[in-house]
């Protein structure tokens, strides 16, 4: 795509060839009204407000592509008439009770009604019963719905749940005379609008999706509202605190909407979380899991003194990655000064994995990010339960398939109906645990440039291919010549006589043929179905950009070193660009900042994890700490971006910085360390207060800064080990969380109501004698736990999922380090 110049309302602007006129206009601060269009989704063409005149022809700006030298006029006399009529239509039967609507003040219907100056109504149609319905975490009021279908579009194109669709409204037809008297587009739009409302795809009464709430966020009116927010606050009352979500490594930009709790209580409370939905889509945890703050009345001096004593005594600090970069930096300087061991197993595994990867790639970090993954048309996901490990990675995968006509390939042992539901163009391959290594070899085999790939690997891969002759039945079309007798009139004699004529005919014929086919033993080992290659070839047609998302299963794989090297080879020798999902919120930051150790010493200080002395933002430790939504600081995201976050809620207790100050450091605020983050790892020396946190009109992400992908020394050796043909079999357990849960912080929130327990698929429960709610003992080689069974319809197959969001459950004890293990289950 090349840069072109188009002219909108006399203004010359630069844009990409093929960019929609609407996007081009928005990027250049030219206003074209539009309701139904979402920047990263395909055009819906429901509202028709974005009518413009391009080169003398009336087109919709949201789906008309820019061409070199195009001249666009955003409003002509006719367009103004159309738009005004469209807005009048939207106002037909729309209740005027803005006072009791949660959208009031940020309502696009209000805005555009004023913008178009609608002060009279010319149209009418008999209304139908449009009573409101409760869909669980979302509340739908069809009476307010203008059927712009933004909810349907985002659910399909961005989220991939396909949970919403348009359903018949059952209204009377429009009066016939409108067809003549009304402006053409307004009539067409009304005709469609009058026939539909929004309903659930499942046909059930309650919404059963991954509960991200994106539909309510994009709703321009008050038709879809988060149930928890209804009537609690008006839009204009809340102050918006720009922040970064602290639940997973996606580091989504969010804004906490805060105001006083009530008339009696002036403490700040978070009422909801908002996002710039044109540029970032949130998951349920980000949107609804906001009240995980650690409420502390005052500074507990005795606990603080005990903490200082503990720090003097300790030789190890054990922590999780739900901390800011600044805190990680503080831990590192404490290590430098006092020689503490820093223990964080999950970040250590990621760090080691990245180091192994760098040995071949020559860069400190993986090459791609999720933003770029949105724009490719073939995505592979390997080693991650993508929907719960990093929901944004799933959105990227889905978005690339829906909007770019892409396809996807999902490798994972855990069967996933959500991934299968993304559409026809995603192929799933459920291999056995430990076979990730073979998967990576398969990717190399399928996609790597064999000419450049080291010859040992080429030979090794070739050893799995055999030529086999098979007999196939094929139906071919054959031309045969038949002799038929026809009656014809003899021209000479004038009599009818029978003559023989040759006639050609094409008939299908079944033949058996011997063909030589290539058989790939890798596919066989992985258990791929027969027509895998056929389907893949179909899916690969017209694909030109490739991305691979690798996840945490790989980092803890017993053969992680080899996997990391294989990934680097894939990146180097195939068209695939790689993104790795950091295990937790700031695993990447921790991995880049801290020097981590493996073993704990004799006296451990735990930060957000159990230690001999525990600092905890969960409120269950010996000294309270602020949680992420009470802190200023930066978080390093999967997109290799250092994002600033702000304190939404006040905190009255001590923080890590106070401890560091008591131990001889001197910083008034922890954000003074932002500029000291290690530049050798790619951080940039910038003051916290200079870091922006917003999106530009053209979608440019102005948030913090991007890490430098620092070059590291290559080891020069590109050899990889042969894979081991081991795999886990039997009753398998997997350490993963349900969608919307990540850590004990998400578990603490009020709106995320997932139940703790042993997660089994409905399919598994049906085929076993366990029932939901049964108390079972799960025992593995490393440990055991007793918990109740939770039925989960977001997974299928036989693998049992043990979540980590409930620290009381202590699922980690059952796993050595790899996320899968074999276990036995018995009822207690």
């Amino acid at each position, binding site marked *: 795509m090349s840069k072109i110049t188009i002219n909108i309302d006399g203004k010359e602007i630069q844009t990409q060839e093929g960019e929609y006129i609407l996007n081009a206009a928005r990027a250049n601060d030219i206003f074209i009204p539009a309701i139904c269009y979402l920047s990263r989704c395909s055009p819906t063409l429901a509202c028709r407000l974005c009518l413009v005149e391009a080169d003398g022809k009336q087109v919709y700006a949201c789906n008309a592509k820019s061409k070199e030298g195009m001249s666009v006029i955003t409003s002509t006399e006719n367009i103004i008439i159309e738009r005004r009529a469209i807005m009048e239509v939207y106002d037909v039967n729309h209740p005027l009770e803005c006072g009791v609507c949660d959208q009031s003040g940020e309502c696009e219907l209000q805005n555009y009604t004023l913008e178009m100056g609608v*002060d009279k109504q010319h149209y*009418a149609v008999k209304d139908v019963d449009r009573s*409101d319905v409760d869909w669980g975490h979302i509340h739908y009021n069809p009476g307010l719905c203008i059927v712009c279908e933004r909810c349907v579009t985002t659910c399909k194109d961005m989220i991939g749940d396909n949970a919403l669709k348009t359903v018949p409204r059952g209204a009377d037809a429009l009066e016939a005379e409108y067809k003549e008297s009304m402006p053409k587009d307004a009539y067409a739009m009304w005709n469609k609008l009058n026939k539909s409302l929004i309903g659930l795809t499942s046909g059930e009464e309650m919404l059963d999706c991954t509960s991200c709430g994106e539909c309510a966020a994009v709703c321009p009116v008050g038709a879809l509202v988060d149930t928890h927010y209804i009537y609690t606050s008006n839009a204009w009352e809340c102050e918006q605190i720009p922040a970064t979500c602290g639940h997973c490594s996606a580091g989504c930009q969010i804004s906490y909407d805060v105001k006083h709790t009530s008339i009696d209580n002036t403490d700040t409370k978070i009422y909801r979380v908002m996002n710039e939905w044109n540029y970032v889509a949130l998951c349920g945890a980000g949107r609804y899991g906001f009240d995980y703050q650690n409420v502390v009345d005052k500074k507990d001096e005795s606990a603080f003194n005990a903490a200082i004593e503990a720090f003097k005594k300790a030789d190890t600090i054990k922590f999780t990655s739900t901390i800011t970069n600044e805190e990680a930096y503080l831990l590192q300087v404490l290590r430098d000064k006092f020689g503490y061991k820093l223990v964080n197993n999950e970040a250590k595994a990621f760090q080691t994995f990245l180091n192994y990867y760098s040995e071949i790639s020559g860069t400190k970090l993986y090459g791609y990010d999720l933003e770029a993954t949105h724009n490719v048309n073939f995505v592979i996901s390997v080693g991650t339960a993508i929907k719960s490990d990093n929901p944004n990675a799933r959105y990227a995968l889905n978005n690339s398939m829906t909007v770019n006509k892409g396809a996807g390939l999902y490798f994972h042992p855990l069967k996933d109906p959500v991934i299968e539901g993304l559409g026809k163009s995603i192929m799933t391959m459920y291999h056995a645990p430990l076979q990730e290594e073979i998967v990576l070899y398969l990717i190399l085999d399928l996609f790597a440039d064999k000419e450049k790939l080291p010859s040992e690997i080429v030979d090794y891969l070739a050893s799995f291919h055999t030529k086999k002759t098979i007999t196939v039945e094929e139906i071919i079309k054959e031309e045969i010549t038949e002799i038929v007798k026809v009656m014809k009139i003899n021209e000479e004699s004038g009599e009818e006589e029978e003559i023989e004529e040759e006639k050609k005919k094409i008939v299908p014929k079944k033949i058996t043929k011997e063909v030589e086919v290539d058989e790939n033993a890798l596919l066989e080992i992985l258990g791929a179905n027969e027509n895998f290659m056929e389907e893949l070839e179909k899916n690969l047609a017209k694909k030109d950009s490739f991305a691979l998302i690798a996840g945490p299963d790989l980092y803890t794989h017993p053969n992680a070193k080899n996997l990391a090297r294989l990934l680097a080879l894939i990146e180097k020798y195939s068209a695939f660009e790689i993104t790795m999902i950091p295990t937790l919120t700031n695993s990447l930051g921790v991995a880049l900042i801290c020097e981590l150790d493996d073993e704990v010493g004799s006296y451990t200080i735990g930060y957000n994890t159990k230690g001999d002395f525990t600092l905890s933002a969960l409120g269950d430790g010996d000294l309270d700490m602020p949680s992420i939504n009470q802190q200023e600081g930066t978080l390093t995201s999967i997109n290799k971006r250092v994002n600033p976050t702000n304190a939404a809620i006040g905190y009255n207790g001590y923080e890590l910085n106070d401890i560091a100050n008591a131990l001889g450091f001197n910083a008034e605020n922890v954000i003074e360390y932002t500029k000291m983050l290690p530049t050798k790892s790619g951080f940039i020396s910038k003051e916290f207060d200079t870091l922006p946190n917003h999106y530009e009109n053209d979608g440019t992400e102005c948030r913090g800064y991007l890490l430098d992908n620092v070059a590291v020394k290559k080891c020069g050796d590109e050899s990889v080990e042969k894979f081991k043909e081991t795999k886990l079999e039997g009753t398998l357990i997997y350490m993963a969380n349900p969608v919307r849960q990540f850590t004990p912080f998400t578990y603490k929130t009020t709106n995320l109501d997932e139940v703790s327990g042993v997660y089994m698929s409905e399919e598994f429960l049906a085929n076993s004698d366990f029932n939901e709610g049964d108390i079972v003992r799960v025992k593995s080689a490393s440990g055991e736990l007793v918990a109740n069974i939770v039925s989960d319809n977001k997974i299928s197959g036989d693998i049992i999922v043990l979540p980590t969001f409930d620290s009381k459950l202590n699922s980690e004890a059952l796993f050595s380090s790899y996320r899968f293990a074999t276990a036995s289950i018995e009822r207690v």
Partner: protein
Amino acid sequence: MHNENIEQHFNNRNVTEINSDYFMVDIADYPTDGWGKFTRTLRRALRGELFVGLWVVLREMIRFDIHTIQYPLEKMPIGPRYRAVHEMKRLWESDAERCIGCGLCEKICISNCIRIDTRLDEESRKEVTEYSINLGRCIFCGYCAEVCPELAITHGGEYENASDQREHFIMYQDMLTPFDTMKAGTQVEFEGFGAITPHEDERVKKTPLAY
């Protein structure tokens, strides 16, 4: 003045129109030069207006017929448009609270003295759980009553709200019309800004309905 005249007066608020009832008061220009100023001073000093005033005082003093209102024993009747302490009205039909909790009063309040708490009630309606006005900050500008779409919050005639502290709150229940007032049918409608003006029906643009 006759009622119709008043209506006409209020309905024709256009000052710029030639035929309007408004006229410019004839005031002589201020003198600009020294002589003008001198003659004006002389004119005013020798007019004896001072003595007129003194005479009135003396006369009333001798008469012992005092016109001053003996507050707090006596009180002047307050005009219906007077803006004193707020009231919350009820609906005539159902005695239900008129306030729907839209929060416009809270938004428009320029001294930021109104706060309102709402929630979703059991009947899926927006319920006002608490409402407070800090009368110590209120400047009685009347914006809240003017913006109220339901004619719920209004000003009343209760102006005796002196308090011994700066912060002085009035709560929802204190402002609501008591039920017995409703039963007696003596709830008084506010006539100030925000109230329905004459000829409102003629001004309303009607929405066509198909049924």
